[in-house]
């Protein structure tokens, strides 16, 4: 009965198909779907690996920044250890500028050491998505406006 049913189905299909056999159509469909899924699975693996590698690199960089700049690494004239706290980097909204954050932290530590004040970094934010001027130019502009 099954053989008769299959023969009826395929004869119906054969009548409909002009130049293609059912086997050819099945090959196109299954191999096409398989290759598309395999290709995109490979991309999933590659992108996931890339994400994990970069997450590992960033976590290692951040663990280096959280320890803070040690007194021996910053050229400070007079550094009373009791009055200077290691600058804390709070939640940062910039994900790939860890060197910039480290430089800012070092600069703040030096200012704190020279002024004797206790300073804490609360956040580091990028000014605007696509600034037309550099950050230094923006800072200069703000400074000029403040003085006016």
């Amino acid at each position: 009965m099954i053989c008769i049913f299959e023969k009826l189905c395929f004869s119906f299909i054969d009548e409909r198909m002009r130049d293609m056999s059912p086997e050819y159509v099945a090959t196109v469909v299954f191999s096409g779907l398989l290759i598309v899924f395999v290709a995109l699975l490979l991309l999933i693996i590659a992108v996931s690996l890339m994400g994990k590698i970069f997450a590992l690199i960033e976590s290692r960089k951040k663990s280096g920044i959280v320890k803070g700049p040690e007194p021996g690494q910053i050229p400070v004239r007079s550094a009373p250890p009791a009055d200077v706290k290691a600058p804390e980097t709070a939640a940062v909204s910039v994900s790939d500028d860890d060197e910039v954050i480290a430089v800012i932290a070092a600069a703040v530590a030096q200012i704190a050491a020279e002024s004797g004040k206790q300073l804490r970094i609360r956040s580091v934010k990028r000014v605007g998505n696509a600034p037309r001027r550099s950050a230094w130019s923006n800072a200069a502009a703000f400074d000029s406006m403040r003085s006016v």
Partner: protein
Amino acid sequence: MLDTFLTTLADLAESSGFASMTISNFIMIGISFLFMFLAIKKGYEPLLLLPISFGMLLTNLPMTGMYHPELWNIDGGQELDFAHILHNGGLLDMLYLGVKLQIYPSLIFLGIGCMTDFAPLIANPKSFILGAAAQAGIFLTFIGAALLGFNGQEAGSIAIIGGADGPTSIYVASKLLSTGGPFTVEVGTIALAAYTYMALVPLIQPPIMRLLTTEKERRIKMETLRTVSKTEKIIFPIAVTVIIALLVPSAAPLVGMLMLGNLFKESGVVDRLCKTAQNELMNIITIFLGISVGATTVADKVISWAFIKVMVLGVISFMIGTASGLVFGKIMCVVTHGKVNPLIGSAGVSAVPMAARQSQLVGTEADPSNFLLMHAMGPNVAGVIGSAVAAGVILSIIPH
């Protein structure tokens, strides 16, 4: 002298287009007006539908000599005679060369790459699965096209409509329908169907999304995506190009240009090139592509049962793609214990960003505080890559 004058007038009348107009021309001109109305008044993909419909008008005005179908319709085993085309072709024949040589779709993908942000996809690579799932519409429609009597090349050209990607559809159709004719479909009819249904995504998708998901599933809120570093965004297009070009070389022109455009954007060092690719170049190519593809919509290819079958198969293809994306979205929801909203699965259809917007809108109906757009953009842009890969696979498997 009067006789000469009258004879000249008679000759001019005979050589005018009025004398050569047939019923088919009237019908096609009417159809071109309809598509112009849809593009201008209704806003259905006007950037391409308007030049396509005007190309349709120009080619169906008789005696203009702008497009010659006989130059492009060659029988099996023959090759295009480009010297003959250059000598005897009209304006639209010259512009159509860019389609036949697969230049326009690739350059459009360059511009699309410059405008696409792959960050949601990089942040959640599992979205690739949804992009792949939505391409099931392409291959299942191939079965339908075969059952309706189309041959392999025609069926492949029709099936790719389900990828919901106009340039990809044109790229595949122009390659498959170049040799081995005569065919019952043309690049223009494929493009017309593709762009019409892309414009109808807001009508086609929501009912299927509501049918295949429950209220509870539509309310699922997804976790915020992680931040993607600039370095990752730069490495991504390079990695995708290498992997896909090695696995499916036929997909290299489309995927390669897409990723090149994205690399222009993410590198940040070729701002001029990026701006040119997504503005001036994209606009020029869109004009050339639209008008030349529209020129192929001659009467005998559109006023035919084959065109009606193409339109029916096109909408079925879209529906299957949406449904398969949703089904995989539901599977991911179960596997992740409710962390994935199945609605983002329908965004695997590569109509960017309309499909993602539909996920957002249907999700907002269930819960106004639910923001799914960025989550849906991941599968949406994955669908662009998926449809390009599917195009390469079709070109590899189907002999042409």
